[in-house]
Structures are given as structure tokens and as C-alpha cells.
């Protein structure tokens, strides 16, 4: 009973500052603490108990409890426990002690909380706007319940430019982005360079925030949201689809039938295969090795085809509804999938064999973009970035979900913490995925695909779900609500954490290594911002003014 033990320990240590707790199962712990104690409880959990920081969530709970909620989520990976430290803030005093001094990884989440809900993190180390544009009026917080989903507040000045920090003494500024830095998505880095060396940077993202969470909380319903969640990311859509559904199932204590769990596992691994191959290709492309870029994509294609056969689409599987899955994997498909895996395995083995000794790639990637164990801990880095630094974490094993508790696999780690290590980790993980899928195909039992849900889902329950996406842990938090939709749904994509580690990774290295360093975390800006990219193609050469571009992107369809 590790959750209970943990709770008893908190009580013994902090006494009456711990108000109450909810222990729905042995893998979840929700502790409500007094506002004054949040900082200390988090410090205790993060430093002394050495838990991993996952996410911070703010929520407007005024219509229900008259307060605002703040949650800091941590993972005890070895104990298979997700722990949420919650506190309620009275609506007339929205101040909370920032935890960034002890947990630097919470920096973005607290800034986001302030922008979107108006919860002030007191003592934040860098309290600049993160999500809202600079022209957004003060005091307007879009995630509050009394703000409609489509409101553009009065006084919004869309022409206002971002205000950047002053570069340090002796440094030049090199703008990197906002269009297509490394990958075809928008984000902006202002690099401070001294000669060829990068000395620091400022990040500006969240440029076309889609407001997916708001939409879900105010317009959609439980079973609509999986299709929306899937579109958070163009690479790991299925991950968000499953993570959302699992979070709701966790909150409502629903257990999907075993066959559905196996199918989820198979599809998640299929997605990992395509993502790892895609990323390996792109990483090679970034360092100028297009041969392998082409070959990775060639080897990847049959994965897309089999996904299309199973789900009806090569990328958007539209797999889950609450309580199950929508597609079956028939015996025929099983045979085909096995054949695809066999071919992939032998082809990928050849690629890995060749690349492992390729000195050109190694020269570009060794000792580049180093993110060591300390950085992993403090910035909360996840996935292959963490594993490449020797941090042995993997939600599939540590916080098991779907059918991962019924399969055998190894968690691949490396030690050198550089881009090369990430490449090695991801290349090897392909074989583990194949192994997992084969076991699932063998073990999959017959049975229903969906749970029959007869009653309404309970209201006001909390649910957590961590899913190991190809690029790291994706974490979803749900509070169930009225009107057949969640009250609060918060998504923390892996890049949200990993991007926060980039400034430290690129510091004091050559500017030419910037692209691969950034590329090596496999950044997904659309997940991070939950925003949309706009693709502008034009045959003729023309310099667009900002005005024209804005007009063009905003032109309504006829």
C-alpha cells in the first residue's frame, strides 16, 4: 500500500497542513494541502523523496467549490505511483508560492497558469508571459469558466510585437525561427551568440494557440474529445487519444476489456515505430545525410499502410472511445502485421548495423546538445532524452497502462547524454517495440472491444494518465464534470518539458549545432502549444509584409 504509506508519511511530517487525501487506487494519490505548505510539500517530494516532476495544472473551480485549484503532479517511478499535490485558492486572492526555486521544471506550467487563469506564482524566477501574446489585455484569462471559448477581449492589440529581453553584454542576436526552425513548425529562438558560440537564448512559442482544452471543456462531449485529442499532434496522435481516454477511465474507475487493452498497446507501438523511423530519418536529414533520410522513410512506409488497413487511416487512427476501442485486429490483419514486423526487423537491423559505425554521423552528433542527469532532473526532461542520459524511466514499465504489464521488454538507456546517445536509444527501441507487438499478437484474447457503459460518469472525480509517447511521456489530467464533458482537461505533451531543457543544451556550443540539438529532442511545437501550423505556399517570389501575411492567413473561406 505505497500510496497510503506515502500519505501517512506526509501527515506525520506536515501535520494539519495536510488537509485530506483521495486514494482511489494504489497507483494514484491526491493530497490536498494548505496553501502555505505547497512549496514545502513539493520540495519534500521532489528533493528528499526524489520524485520526478510531471506537470502543474490550474483550474477554475468557482462554479463548483467557489475556489481555484492548483495541482502539482509528481511521479514516483520506482513505486509506480502518480501523486498530485492540490491546493484550493479563494477566488479573491489568487496567489500561490512558486515552486520554481526547487523545481525549475515547473517554470512554464506556472507561467501558463498565470496567463490562462490569472493564478499568480509568487517568487517565480522568470515571470514573463508564455502563452498569451503581448497585445492581450491584462486581467483577461481565457481558461476561466466565465470566458466564452470564442471571446476576443476588448483592447486586444494584435499588432503589438513581442517584447524581448536584452541580450547579454558582448553578444549578438541571431533569430532562429519563427518559421520552420529545424522542423516545419513555428517557434522562435533568439540566440545570443559570441562569435560562433551560443551563450544563451530566449524562447518564444505558443504563436497560434488552438485553445483545444477550452474547446473540450466548453463545447465537446466525452466521446468527441478523443478525436480532438488525436489532432494535438501529427506524429503521436494516438498517444493523446489513448492518454485522454485513460485519464477519464481512471477518474470514472472503468476498466476496458482486455482485448481493447491489447489493441491499444499494439497501435501505440505501431505509432512508436513510425515515429522513431521518421525521427531517425529527420535527424539524418538535419545533419546532411539524406541517404538515410530516404531509406528510413522507405522502411517506414509499410507501417503506415498496415496502420491504414487496421484503422482506416495511415495516421489518424481514431482508435479509442471511453471504455474501449473502435477497431478490431482480425486474424488476417494479425498475419499481415507479423509479416510487416519481420520485414521491418531485418531491414532496420541492416540500417542500425551500418549507422552504428558511421563516423560522419558520429562527428556531427557526439558531445552535441548534452543534457546530463542533473538537467534531466531539474528541467523534468522525459523520454529518449532522459534515457540517453542514463536516467532509467519509461512510463510503459513504471506507470503501466493498457497491456504493458503483460509483456516483456527492456528499457533502452545510454550514458553519453548527447545527440548520438538519443539516436542510439531510439534506433534500438524499434526492436523492443517489435518485441512488444509480437507478444501482444500472441496473447491477445477474444472478447468485446468496448465496455458497456450504462450509467453517467461520476462528477468531480480526478484522473491521471501518463503514456510513453515516442518522444517522451505525455501526461493528461482530467476532472470529470456535468453535461457529459470534463470540467478540466490538461494536456502536458513531452516537448513541453523537453523544450525547457534546450537553452541549457545549446549553451556554449557552436551555432551550427543548434539545429540538430533542437531536432534531437524531436520537438513537437504543435503539441506544446496545442497550436496549429499554417502552411503558406506561393509560386511567385514576393516579399510579404506582416500586414499582408496576417490578412492572408486570416482570410475567411468563401
Amino acid at each position, binding site marked *: 500500500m505505497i500510496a497510503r504509506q506515502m500519505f501517512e508519511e506526509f501527515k506525520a511530517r506536515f501535520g494539519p497542513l495536510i488537509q485530506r487525501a483521495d486514494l482511489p487506487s494504489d497507483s494514484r494519490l491526491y493530497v490536498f494541502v494548505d496553501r502555505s505548505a505547497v512549496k514545502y510539500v513539493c520540495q519534500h517530494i521532489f528533493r528528499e523523496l526524489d520524485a520526478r516532476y510531471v506537470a502543474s495544472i490550474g483550474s477554475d473551480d468557482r462554479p463548483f467549490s467557489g475556489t481555484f485549484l492548483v495541482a502539482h503532479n509528481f511521479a514516483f517511478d520506482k513505486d509506480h505511483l502518480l501523486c498530485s499535490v492540490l491546493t484550493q485558492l479563494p477566488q479573491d486572492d489568487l496567489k500561490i508560492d512558486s515552486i520554481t526555486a526547487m523545481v525549475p521544471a515547473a517554470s512554464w506550467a506556472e507561467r501558463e497558469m498565470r496567463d490562462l487563469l490569472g493564478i499568480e506564482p509568487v517568487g517565480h524566477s522568470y515571470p514573463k508571459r508564455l502563452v498569451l501574446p503581448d497585445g492581450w489585455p491584462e486581467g483577461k484569462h481565457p481558461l476561466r469558466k466565465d470566458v466564452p471559448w470564442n471571446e476576443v477581449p476588448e483592447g486586444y492589440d494584435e499588432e503589438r510585437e513581442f517584447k524581448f529581453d536584452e541580450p547579454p553584454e558582448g553578444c549578438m542576436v541571431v533569430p532562429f525561427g519563427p518559421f520552420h526552425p529545424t522542423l516545419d513548425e513555428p517557434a522562435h529562438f533568439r540566440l545570443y551568440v559570441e562569435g560562433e558560440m551560443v551563450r544563451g537564448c530566449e524562447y518564444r512559442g505558443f504563436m497560434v494557440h488552438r485553445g483545444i482544452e477550452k474547446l473540450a471543456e466548453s463545447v*465537446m462531449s466525452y*466521446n*468527441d*474529445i*478523443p*478525436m*480532438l485529442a488525436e*489532432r494535438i499532434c501529427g506524429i503521436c496522435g494516438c498517444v493523446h487519444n489513448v492518454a485522454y481516454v485513460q485519464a477519464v477511465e481512471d477518474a470514472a474507475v472503468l476498466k476496458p476489456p482486455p482485448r481493447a487493452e491489447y489493441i491499444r498497446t499494439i497501435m501505440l507501438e505501431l505509432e512508436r515505430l513510425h515515429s522513431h523511423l521518421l525521427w531517425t530519418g529527420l535527424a539524418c536529414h538535419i545533419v546532411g545525410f539524406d*541517404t*538515410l533520410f*530516404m*531509406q528510413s522513410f*522507405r522502411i517506414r*512506409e509499410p507501417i503506415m*499502410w498496415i496502420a*491504414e*488497413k*487496421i*484503422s*482506416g*487511416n495511415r495516421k*489518424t487512427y*481514431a482508435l479509442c472511445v471511453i471504455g474501449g476501442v*473502435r*477497431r478490431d485486429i482480425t486474424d488476417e490483419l494479425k498475419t499481415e502485421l507479423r509479416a510487416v514486423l519481420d520485414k521491418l526487423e531485418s*531491414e532496420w537491423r*541492416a*540500417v542500425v*548495423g*551500418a*549507422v*552504428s*559505425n*558511421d*563516423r*560522419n554521423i558520429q562527428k556531427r552528433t557526439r558531445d552535441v546538445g548534452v543534457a546530463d542527469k542533473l538537467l534531466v532532473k531539474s528541467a523534468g526532461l522525459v523520454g529518449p532524452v532522459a534515457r540517453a542520459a542514463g536516467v532509467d524511466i519509461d512510463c510503459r514499465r513504471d506507470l503501466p497502462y493498457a497491456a504493458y504489464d503483460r509483456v516483456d521488454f527492456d528499457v533502452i538507456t545510454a550514458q553519453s547524454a548527447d545527440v548520438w546517445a538519443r539516436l542510439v536509444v531510439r534506433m534500438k527501441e524499434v526492436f523492443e517495440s517489435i518485441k512488444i507487438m509480437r507478444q501482444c499478437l500472441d496473447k491477445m484474447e477474444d472478447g468485446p472491444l468496448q465496455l458497456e457503459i450504462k450509467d453517467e460518469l461520476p462528477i468531480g472525480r480526478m484522473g491521471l494518465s501518463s503514456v510513453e509517447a515516442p518522444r517522451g511521456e505525455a501526461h493528461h489530467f482530467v476532472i470529470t464534470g456535468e453535461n457529459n464533458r470534463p470540467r478540466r482537461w490538461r494536456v502536458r505533451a513531452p516537448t513541453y518539458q523537453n523544450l525547457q531543457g534546450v537553452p541549457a543544451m545549446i549553451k556554449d556550443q557552436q551555432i551550427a549545432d543548434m539545429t540538430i540539438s533542437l531536432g534531437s529532442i524531436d520537438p513537437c511545437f504543435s503539441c506544446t502549444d496545442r497550436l496549429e501550423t499554417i502552411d503558406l505556399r506561393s509560386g511567385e517570389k514576393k516579399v510579404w509584409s506582416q500586414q499582408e501575411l496576417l490578412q492572408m492567413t486570416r482570410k*475567411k*473561406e*468563401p
Partner: protein
Amino acid sequence: MSLLSKLEETLICLKAGRVTLPYPAQAQPLPEKFRGRPIFDATKCIGCAGCANNCPAREILVYDVCQEVRVLQYLGRRCTYCGRCADVCPEKAITMSLEFENATNQIGDLGQKLELFMSTCQRCGRCFKGAAALDELKMKGYRSDDLESERWVYRAHAFLEGEPAVADIEIELD
């Protein structure tokens, strides 16, 4: 040895040969379960609006223009081809087709509109889908008043053409 790995890489490329498919010059086969554009079948649809209630993209509108005529309008603009509508349809009136090359300059091309004849229940006064086409034809929705020549006109087929009978509903499409 790096030279060796270069050779291995060359071998991988040579072995693969040419893999580019002659698309779009030649159509590629699509799997059976492919989710393309949903196609609505007016002869099967009973106007229950189950699809409209479950469409995540809110792409389907169902409204009554009068007691006898119910319109199902599929907008096709934001449709993500998720197939939820086809899943929930009790009458299997929606097929996820194999159509996916749907680029168009006229977004309206993608829409579909069914006009469904609904009979009136003699007890509750609500409308329901009539049992057989021949029975339906006798009822009010299938005739229109031709005031000029002071007579009724029967319609010859199951769909009303042109404007809906009452044009007093305004629906915001975007």
C-alpha cells in the same frame, strides 16, 4: 570502420531499388476499411440525428423545415473522416467511402443534403419515418399546393427538389 559502413549503406540503397509509386498517374488500391468521405443514403436514413449528436466536428445539422420534411445537412468542411457518424447510425445509412481526393475550390461541393419525408403520428402528433414509400406518397409532405391552378400536385419521387417548403430557419454555417 567507417568505409565499411558506407558500403553497407550503399548496399541498403541498391537493394531497395526504386520504390516511388506512380501516383497520381495511377490510382493505388485502398484497404477495405479505409475511412474516406462519409456518404449518406437517403433511402435508409430515418432522421434520428444520432450522427449529428455524435459528430466531434459538428458537421451534421438536422432540422425540420415543416412537420413533414426533415433535412439532414452534412457540411463536409471540417469533417475529419473519423467515422463516428457511421458507427452510431442505427440504420447503416452512412458509409465511409473510399473517396479521399476531395480538394476543391468550392467548399460547398463537399456538402450533402438529404430531405427526409416524415409521417405524422396520429397519436402524439410527432413525425416519424413512414413505413413504405407508397404509403408516404399519399401523405401531405408529398403533395404541394398549386394555388395558381387551385389543385394539389403530387410529387413523383421521394425527395423534394429546390427550396425547402418553409424557409424560415436560419442556420449559421460557420
